[in-house]
């Protein structure tokens, strides 16, 4: 990579990214408003009592009495100043609501991500090295099982085994509320709560990485430069690490880039089963409640992160594989 090209590349890509994000915001806006019903009707439904005055008060407060294009214009103006708006339903700023959920989400998705990448690549590399052996078959079958099993079922089974039968781990939540743990005791408490949801979320991706790593490594193993290295007498361990694995990493990084983009989005299913207070549930509940501002805010943050991670992935390619140039 030539250092001189980088600033221009970044500037061009960032400009494109802004255009993409804006287009996404506009699409989302119409998509969200296309869902039948509005926040006022949801709140009336939940309150069990309503009159015309109540509906009108709510619609005026939520700004729903304005024409749609005016609402869009108001929203775009606030997004451009990085103000994500206000949830009238929850009486809180959208940015604050998202920030409140972000740590829990990042902890869960980050742990699952790390577990999946490290575990998956390791298992894939082991399988590729011992291709055809019982270990390879075992890993392949394991990966296939995780790949094909629905997430919620894995979650329920883990709960059944580790919470109900063995009583080792808590079945829901992020910490023992009211126990007053401080310092390391708190970390340990959260780790115990984190284990099952992170495993549940990570197992599918672990399978994907394992299969991907195994397949690409097998492909690279037969290439000429590996044979050359072997002929030169490079130790087998070093060949695997420096020659095979490094060259097999590109597809893995592509996939990891995609998964990393979803880190901020959380996972509705896992968060629901384990009562994890993450962003996936925030978005899902906002959808059901037609809390437009919150939903758009989550969409906005997720799209920004996806765009940024795509950019980062492209830069990472160039670092791992010097033949790839940015520009």
């Amino acid at each position: 990579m030539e250092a001189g090209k980088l600033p221009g590349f970044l500037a061009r890509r960032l400009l494109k990214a802004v255009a993409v994000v804006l287009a996404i915001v506009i699409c989302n806006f119409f998509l969200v408003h296309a869902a039948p019903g509005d926040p006022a009707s949801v709140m009336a439904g939940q309150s069990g009592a309503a009159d015309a005055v109540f509906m009108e008060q709510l619609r005026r407060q939520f700004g729903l009495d304005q024409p749609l294009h005016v609402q869009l214009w108001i929203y775009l103006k606030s997004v451009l100043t990085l103000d994500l708006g206000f949830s009238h339903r929850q009486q809180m700023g959208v940015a604050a609501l998202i920030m409140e959920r972000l740590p829990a989400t990042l902890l869960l998705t980050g742990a699952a991500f790390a577990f999946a990448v490290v575990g998956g690549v390791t298992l894939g590399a082991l399988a590729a090295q011992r291709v055809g052996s019982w270990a390879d078959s075992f890993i392949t079958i394991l990966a296939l099982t995780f790949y094909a099993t629905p997430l919620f079922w894995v979650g329920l089974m883990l709960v059944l085994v580790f919470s109900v039968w063995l009583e080792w781990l808590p079945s829901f939540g992020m910490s023992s509320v009211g126990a007053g743990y401080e310092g390391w005791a708190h970390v340990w408490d959260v780790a115990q709560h984190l284990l099952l949801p992170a495993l549940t979320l990570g197992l599918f991706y672990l399978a994907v990485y394992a299969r991907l790593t195994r397949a690409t490594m097998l492909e690279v193993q037969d290439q000429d430069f590996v044979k050359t290295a072997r002929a030169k007498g490079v130790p087998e361990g070093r060949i695997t690490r420096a020659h095979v694995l490094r060259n097999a990493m590109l597809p893995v990084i592509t996939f990891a880039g995609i998964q990393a983009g979803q880190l901020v989005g959380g996972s509705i299913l896992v968060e629901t089963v384990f009562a994890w207070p993450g962003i996936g549930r925030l978005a899902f509940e906002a959808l059901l409640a037609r809390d437009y501002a919150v939903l758009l805010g989550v969409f906005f943050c997720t799209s920004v992160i996806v765009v940024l991670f795509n950019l980062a992935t492209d830069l990472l390619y160039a670092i791992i594989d010097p033949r790839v140039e940015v520009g």
Partner: protein
Amino acid sequence: MELNRRGLLAATPLLMTVAEAQAQGITPRRGGTLTTMLTPEPPVLQIGVNNQGPTIVIGSKMFEGLLTFSPTLEPIPVLAKSWTISPDGKEYVFRLQENVKFHDGRPMTADDVIFSVMKFHTELAPRARAIFALIDTAEAPDPHTVKFTLKQAFEPFLLMFDVSACGIVPKHLFDGLDYRTAPVVQRPVGTGPFRFAEWQRGNFVRLERFSDYWRPNQPYLDAIIYRIVPDSQSRRLAIETGQAQLTQANDIEPFDVPALRARPNLEVAVNGWEYFSPVSWIELNHRVAPLNDVRVRQALSMAVDRNFIAQRLWFGVGKPATNPVASTTKFHDRNVRIAGFDVRAANALLDAAGFRANAQGVRFTLKHLVLPYGEIWSRLAEYLRQAFRQVGVTLELESTDAGNWARRIGAWEYETSVNFVYQFGDPTLGVERTYVTSNIQRVTFTNTGGYSNPRVDELFARARSVPAAADRQAAFTDVQKILCEEVPQIWLMEMAFPTIHDRRLRNVVTTGLGVHTGFGDVFLAS
């Protein structure tokens, strides 16, 4: 004076619960944290600003009304220690408890009560707005006396002073602000036994003991933690494994109740809903033929086996409805009953009405908007489809989500659905709205079906305005007879919700409001 005595007598149920506990050799124990759940998570915790079921469950720990109600709906003193009603039924005088403090330390006085009634709830809540509009003047002769003078007599007036209808809020933290956006909405301040401590959205709400609470020694618990657990099976697991000690309202699906009943450490109560007494019904849109034909409505009603619904779908949580007024609501007439389950008679009625079955045995087809409030309602819809097939009526199920359901019911864009509303102890407060012509509105929970009968309108109007309970009973008996004859909606069940708790947790359900009370007297036995 006579009513004053009634107020004092009504206080006995609360005393009895403590006495009962002592009779079992258990004196209330101070200390301990109760972990329970809240489903679904409310958007805000300030009652009035939000009046959803879960908001009332948690709000009733932080706020108090002037009164609460026994299972037979007799008033029990809370913030009002006594009250008198003038013989013409227009003047209500409440004497307030004198040593009551809000959680911020300021005393609660008559000013707060008048502000809560005349401004706060009247501005925010549709139900309060409709009833409190009857108040002509509200005065405070002294800081601990409130006098309301009504424009006309209104017999069910007292029922509006429970915390679920009119919790007393601090005037000094709301007056002059927009009530919905006032800062205190995020950290509610009331007079209840528990004060707001912490809310991590999507995770938990923590309430802690209010040490300046006005009832001596109460509350017994140190804290109550409401966990937010969105999945019903996870909630069931939480109570089974002891991670929670109490579930309420919609926490546990009815079909999970039998398994929990079988556990020796848990107690399942289905009482404590007498004040709300929701009755569920098949919601019929009278604008859709042939639902405007009374014979069709009668036939469909006879095609439904309510015992099956109560026993096999709800597993005994709730019981079959016998008429539009729940048996636990005042003025229910037990001698007035809808026609029973009779498929043969239903078929005969439809034949007589000229709805012949075609070659496939189908007389006509109706669409059914499934109530999107959980698995149990989908099961009910499937049962109804089968039941109606017995009388040659095809029910086409449409599913939707809560937002669209409320919109479509409010916009009259449905043929049939299922619906239920709280009755609030009196037909004037909770039943009238579904059947009178003047309440046919394009708003959810009004008379969305569009039923209209001048005689019914007249009887409800009479029951609303006459001061004597006996005269009201006569009008309500007549109205129940007409409604049972004309079947404007097909009533299904007098609903109840299971309150499931660890046996060590005492005094959970002691009034007609069950888990919607302060929990000052609730304690964890060792």
